[in-house]
């Protein structure tokens, strides 16, 4: 029994009852507050939290588009894509980068170059995007990574499409290549507002067609909305906006002719440009030596790059586009045309060539290549026999200002507007050009300009384009490498439009014809300098040989190819088109230090014209003509 006085008991009960009632009120009020809070979260702001829950789980993942293929005019694939395992790292998800790299390095081989490239790219890629660490993993390496995936946070294995050039270095100087987007390119992408287009894309066209048609080849990025857990792992794709593949690009290039041209130049340095003079379509665009673009795609190692850079043959230089050579005697048909157009010289006017030309009051002799001279020479013979004396005199008569103006009109010293970036324009000298450099123009320089020597410089592309003017009756074409672009899904094709500038009207046809007739006799005439390639030709060719001095020869000294060191020998040039009555192909060939144009350059042009005009003679692409490169090496 509890010993509590009754009165106290009642008082206690009353106090306790009132206090308990207060607490009960407290309980009710607090519960109502909680309910209000629930109402606020679950009803009033339900939409907001629902959106946030969804945003939590669903993250957009960019799906890079398939880059367009590059094919030659006959559909031979020059640039393609193949799937390869790529090991990628999201740096923001990696706690200890060094430890992770070491761990990955224990599973797959990681070269110093791989690591260097990886760290380099960390600066140029947006945050929370994966960076490639290793490409082209073998099946075994991929399996090893897959097994250890749970211990490798932030490391991902992707099957990505890799660019590959199956014909290796074939046409490298026109094709270019893709490479990893570098810091500078990334900032350009940002500035031009193209960041979104490149999400998930690691490569960009660096040179050539790959660079020039980057926007066509790239395609449009797609997006996958992927459900992810709190650790960022993808669970499944909820919706997918498919990427749009880039356009395939068909080139005017014929890979077989390209291969033939490169093979004929192999072991030499030089360039060949062949084009259709009626459309500007570039059929062959060769620069030798070439190099394999495939190592550049994911970053070439420094050692290999240095080897290319320090190679005395300079394979990295695009001679067809950027090689600037004195045109030598190949300038004579144009100079002849200038003479006729000037009205100062008539086609039938003759000069006597005794092998030496002197300016009035100057002792310096300007020699003809033929010591004894050519005797009585008119315009026709001056081209056929490539008489220097005739052009020394003509140049002086025309004057450098006229020559400058006329040659510039023919496209010399000008950009051709070819669909490649970084074209060199060469140089047509003038008094003004000299003055701008604070120097005086000497008449002697006008003299040598007459035979394409001195400061005058042209590119092989310009020569091909300018000789096309003579072939097509006076039109300056805009050269085109791209034949058509094709949507890989719809197969819808857009053809490149050819464009030109009409330089000569119908009234000038006699002058043009006179030049073409002379050039025809260069190949087919008895005294023609290129008769060696003409005697057995089943079609008629108009051409002009050229020899450009590399080393200036001291007065009175004689040039002797035998005694001159190989690198100091003259460059051999040849320009031509055929068939004469209906020209379909124009060619310019330069063989550096090749000696005479007639022997070193003309046969190459003849072969290409044969292949193009007599298709049955064209050799198929085979292992003898191209090195077929395998993607998995």
């Amino acid at each position: 029994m509890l010993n509590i006085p009754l009165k106290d008991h009642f008082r206690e009960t009353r106090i306790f009852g009132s206090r308990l009632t207060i607490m009960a009120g407290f309980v009710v009020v607090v519960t109502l507050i909680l309910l209000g809070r629930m109402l606020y979260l679950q009803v009033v702001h339900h939409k907001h939290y629902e959106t946030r829950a969804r945003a939590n789980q669903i993250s957009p993942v960019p799906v890079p588009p398939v880059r367009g293929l590059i094919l030659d005019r006959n559909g031979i694939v020059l640039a393609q894509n193949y799937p390869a395992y790529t090991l990628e790292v999201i740096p923001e998800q990696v706690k200890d980068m060094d430890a992770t790299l070491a761990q990955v390095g224990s599973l797959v081989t990681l070269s110093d170059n791989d690591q260097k490239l990886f760290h380099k790219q960390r600066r140029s890629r947006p945050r929370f995007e994966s960076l490639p660490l290793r490409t082209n993993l073998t099946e075994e390496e991929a399996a090893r990574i897959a097994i250890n995936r749970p211990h490798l946070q932030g490391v991902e294995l992707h099957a990505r499409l890799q660019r590959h050039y199956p014909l290796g270095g074939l046409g490298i100087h026109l094709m270019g290549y893709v490479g990893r987007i570098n810091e500078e390119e990334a900032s350009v992408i940002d500035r031009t507002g193209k960041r979104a287009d490149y999400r998930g894309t690691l490569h960009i066209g660096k040179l050539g067609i790959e660079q020039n048609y980057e926007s066509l080849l790239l395609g449009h990025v797609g997006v996958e909305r992927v459900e992810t857990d709190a650790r960022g792992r993808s669970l499944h794709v909820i919706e997918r906006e498919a990427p749009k593949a880039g356009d395939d690009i068909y080139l005017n290039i014929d890979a077989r002719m390209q291969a033939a041209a490169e093979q004929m130049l192999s072991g030499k340095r030089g360039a060949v440009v062949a084009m259709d003079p009626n459309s500007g379509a570039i059929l062959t665009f060769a620069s030798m030596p070439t190099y394999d673009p495939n190592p550049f795609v994911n970053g070439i190692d420094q050692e290999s790059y240095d080897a290319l850079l320090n190679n005395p043959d300079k394979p990295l230089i695009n001679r067809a586009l950027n090689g600037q050579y004195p045109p030598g005697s190949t300038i004579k048909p144009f100079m002849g045309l200038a003479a006729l157009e000037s009205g100062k010289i008539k086609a039938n006017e003759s000069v006597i060539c005794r092998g030496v030309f002197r300016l009035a009051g100057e002792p310096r002799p300007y020699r003809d290549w033929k010591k004894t001279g050519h005797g009585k020479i008119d315009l026709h013979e001056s081209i056929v026999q490539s008489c220097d004396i005739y052009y020394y005199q003509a140049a002086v008569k025309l004057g450098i200002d006229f020559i400058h103006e006329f040659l510039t009109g023919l496209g010399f010293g000008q950009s051709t507007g070819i669909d490649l970036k970084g074209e060199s324009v060469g140089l047509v000298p003038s008094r003004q050009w000299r003055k701008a450099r604070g120097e005086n123009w000497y008449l002697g320089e006008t003299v040598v300009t007459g035979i394409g020597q001195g400061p005058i410089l042209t590119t092989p592309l310009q020569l091909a384009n300018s000789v096309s003017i003579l072939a097509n009756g006076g039109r300056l074409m805009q050269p085109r490498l791209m034949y058509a672009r094709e949507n890989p899904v719809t197969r819808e094709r857009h053809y490149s439009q050819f464009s030109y500038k009409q330089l000569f009207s119908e009234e000038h046809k006699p002058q043009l014809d006179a030049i073409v007739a002379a050039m025809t006799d260069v190949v087919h005439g008895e005294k023609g300098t290129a008769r060696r390639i003409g005697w057995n030709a089943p079609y008629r060719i108009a051409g002009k040989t050229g020899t450009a001095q590399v080393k200036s020869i001291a007065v009175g000294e004689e040039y002797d190819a035998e005694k001159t060191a190989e690198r100091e020998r003259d460059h051999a040039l040849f320009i031509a088109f055929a068939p004469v009555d209906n020209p379909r192909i124009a060619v310019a060939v330069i063989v550096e230090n090749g000696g005479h144009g007639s022997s070193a350059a003309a046969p190459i042009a003849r072969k290409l014209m044969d292949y193009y005009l007599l298709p049955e003679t064209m050799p198929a692409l085979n292992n003898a003509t191209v090195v077929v490169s395998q993607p998995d090496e």
Partner: protein
Amino acid sequence: MNDLKRFINGIRYDKPLMVALLIFALMSFVVLYSASGKNISVVGSQAIRLTLAYIIMLFIAQVRPDTFVRYSPHFYAAGLVLLVVVLVVGVIGKGAQRWISFGGFNLQPSELMKLAVPMVVAWWLARDGLPPSLRNVAIAAVLIFVPVLLIIKQPDLGTGALILASGLIVIFLAGLSWRVITVLALATAAAMPLVWATMHDYQRQRVISFLNPESDPLGAGYHSIQSMIAVGSGGFFGKGWLDSSQAHLGYLPESKTDFVFAVFAEEFGLMGTVLLFSMYLFVIGRGMYIAYNAQDAYSRLLAGSLTLTFFLYFFVNIGMVTGILPVVGVPLPLISHGGSSLVTLMAAFGILMSIQSHRRILQQ
């Protein structure tokens, strides 16, 4: 046979409370199965713990209330000793010394104190009749603060605060005069800066992130934000059982323990929440009924304090999950997956059942 039947019939318990607790147990299984990502072993371990807790509860329910009265000081003293021991030799878990290990069995003395503090205060105040004298209140305060400070020192601020509350509730129910209450409330408010100064960094961080969770969405505010997203995205009807994306995709931390209510609210919506709240209110109501009808001051004070402390656990947990209280590690009573706190809770219900089932008709 008859002996067994007599034994079973002789077991004292409170039927309404028992039924409610069994329903809670079922709800706990259902929610934990989803919160654990359909892990049946989590439900299994909860079932084992619950069974153990029920046995303890029923065992305590058989004890006469005057036994509690008699042994309250002893129980309290033993708890105090263990609290000191844990500070010296305790096992460090989650950065705090809370456990004493007895050969595989972990004892958390602060759990004992959840019961011992209200018991000893009720015992002390009931001895001299109610309302208590100021002297008795002062001594009761000492009885409360010594273990509370020891627990906060572990450090376990949440448990310390709740034990403090359970003791203060006893004093309040005993009839502490409003004048004294007002003075103490003002003094407490004045002491707040001092409390802040003595807090650990992580405790301060929790308070800061509570005041502005978005200030550090991936750090200290993460729990709060993710649990509010879970609750809010549940909406009126909820996403349905097993469809809590926040828990299943791993965004919700501690989804089986402290944040289990977020899973419940996400899956069952406001409808489920109202039902759950009703269940809690029923249990609290029953506890207050038992307290009101208890036959002596000690029983009344203890039953009232235990019931209201139970409510505080509920309030603090829901408040934390819904972002109106800072993140303190307090589980949702009767639902969260957890060991010793569940046993303590069920022991408290055992005391309530004992008080209710040992009543005698008093001679008026």
